[in-house]
């Protein structure tokens, strides 16, 4: 930063404007670059997207104002309906990562030799990119060559073509997404468990609390901050699901694995024609769904700030 006072004068009355207002001005100087970048690339585009959603535009030629037409069209679009339902499936099933992560964290919260390596290796899937996770799982699911059918064959089941079956494919992709997400929740809970108050546990033990009751009445309440973060990242992750779908099924079979984020991309930027306005309208719907959660997150952060 170049906001140093020009000449540090020795005589007090000659202090410059900057010096007199230093405390009020400095934060804005520090904030300026971040706010500029953020406004230019994040805030302004949100507004623009909403505006574009009222236009019919192919991305190159003249945009034509069509009012609510894009939204009206959405109402009758069966692909949109499928995407919306799939988004709901993602939201609900993705939340399984939270109890799953807690379960693994409880399993690993011990102090035997080598446990640290076990913890890292259990966490490991989270570090992989979704693209790699998608590839790994699509090979895992392969109808003939995949390991899943190999294992199923051993117990006399299968073969199943998970990603080729319109009713199963979405669940197959969600399962792949749960793998890294559960790892993330696990690490949050491991950290949380570390900070659980041992005295409360001892007190609980003296009162005869064991197993499930101990977990439910003493441990889980103390894990609240970890649960909150796990909830936030899981919801966001579920609504952002794009990479896995694009890699594993590309929306198919018969468009049955599309979600809003993928369908929007398909409409706006693929060989099916550049329908920017229609794509933007889908994005706005997704944004509004997300906004409910964002408002809730901000509200809980705000009440916490006030509580300090």
């Amino acid at each position, binding site marked *: 930063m170049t906001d*140093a*006072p020009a000449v540090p004068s020795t005589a007090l009355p000659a202090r410059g404007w900057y010096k007199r207002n230093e*405390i009020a001005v*400095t*934060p804005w100087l*520090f904030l300026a*670059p*971040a706010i500029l*970048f*953020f406004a230019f*690339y994040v805030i302004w*585009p*949100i507004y*623009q*997207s909403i505006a*574009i959603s009222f236009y019919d535009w192919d*991305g190159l030629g003249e945009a034509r104002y069509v009012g609510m037409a894009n939204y009206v069209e959405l109402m009758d679009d069966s692909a949109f309906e499928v995407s919306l339902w799939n988004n709901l499936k993602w939201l609900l099933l993705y939340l399984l990562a939270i109890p799953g992560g807690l379960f693994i964290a409880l399993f690993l919260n*011990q*102090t035997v030799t080598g446990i640290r390596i076990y913890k890292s*290796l259990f966490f*490991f*899937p989270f*570090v*992989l*990119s*979704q*693209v*790699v996770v998608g*590839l*790994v*799982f699509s*090979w*895992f699911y392969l109808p003939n*060559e995949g*390991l899943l059918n*190999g294992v199923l064959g051993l117990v006399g089941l299968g073969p199943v073509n998970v990603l080729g079956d319109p009713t199963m494919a979405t669940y197959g992709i969600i399962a792949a997404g749960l793998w890294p997400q559960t790892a993330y929740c696990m690490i949050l809970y491991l*950290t949380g468990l*570390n900070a*659980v108050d041992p005295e409360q546990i001892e007190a609980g033990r003296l009162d005869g609390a064991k197993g499930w009751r*101990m*977990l439910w009445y*003493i441990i889980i309440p103390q894990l609240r*901050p970890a649960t909150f*973060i796990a909830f*936030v990242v899981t919801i966001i992750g579920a609504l952002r699901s*794009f*990479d896995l779908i694009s890699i594993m099924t590309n929306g198919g079979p018969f468009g049955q694995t599309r979600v*809003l*984020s993928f369908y*929007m991309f398909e409409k*706006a930027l693929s060989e099916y024609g550049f329908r*920017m306005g229609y*794509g*933007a309208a*889908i*994005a706005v719907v*997704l*944004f509004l769904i997300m906004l409910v959660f964002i408002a809730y997150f*901000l509200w809980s952060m*705000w009440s916490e700030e006030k509580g300090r």
Partner: protein
Amino acid sequence: MFPTPIEKTPRSWQLTYQSLLPVALIMWLLPLIAVAVFSVKPAVDFTQGNYWGLPSSFELFNNYGQVFFNSDMPRYMLNSVLITVPTVIGAVALSCLAGFALGIYKFKSNIWVFFMFVAGNFVPFQILMVPVRDLTLDMGLYNTKTGLVLFHIAFQTGFCTLFMRNFIRALPYELVEAARVEGIAEWKIFWYVVIPLMKPAIAALSVLIFTFIWNDYFWAVVLTQGPESQPVTAGITSFNAQFRAAYHLMSAGSIVAALPPVLMFFLMQKHFIAGLTLGAVK
């Protein structure tokens, strides 16, 4: 400690636990182990239907050699580095400044500016896609690494500022007050008092952002095309098209693409986990 420490449980459960651990781990990583085994198999194993058995010969050097010397993979990797590193530097720098402003100074709109960053960070990418792609085209930065880097810096600034601001809030404020009493200029307080205390946060954020950006796929597809500027996450799809059905090479390629963040994680594990779990404990 919960659950009951294993040392205090019956001997039988101790033994069960000890043997359960490796079994659980293998099951957890099974899809990945399969890919790792695929990547050292010879092509002939796949044509003969030997998918899950042991490799008939050990082709580690051959397969990975193909990836490194006979494909665009090194180029994609280099692109990824050239996109990821400047983004990490840019986003961390911007958020140090912004986090300092929001963490130290009390002014009316403080919380609103903060919430703007937080909310922006949660926004679905798709609402930004059309305008950002357009903007990048207009600036002549479509299909360049710079275009991707600039956007990533801007977007990551949201999360980074949230992180930095919370970290600075937890620092002892008396240090800043003491410095002010001494008459030290504000920017010097930032540089000489706060930044040295932020080193752990900077390290944690750098590792996290490195992983996030390296693993980004969506923006790579939206803002770039072709091997001149595409990062490895997007490049792997063309790589796979080049070696269609050659599972040994596709597996090796995927492992190579995943390696840098994995190494980063294992080398900087402490910082990585500290970054991810900030706020998970009160």
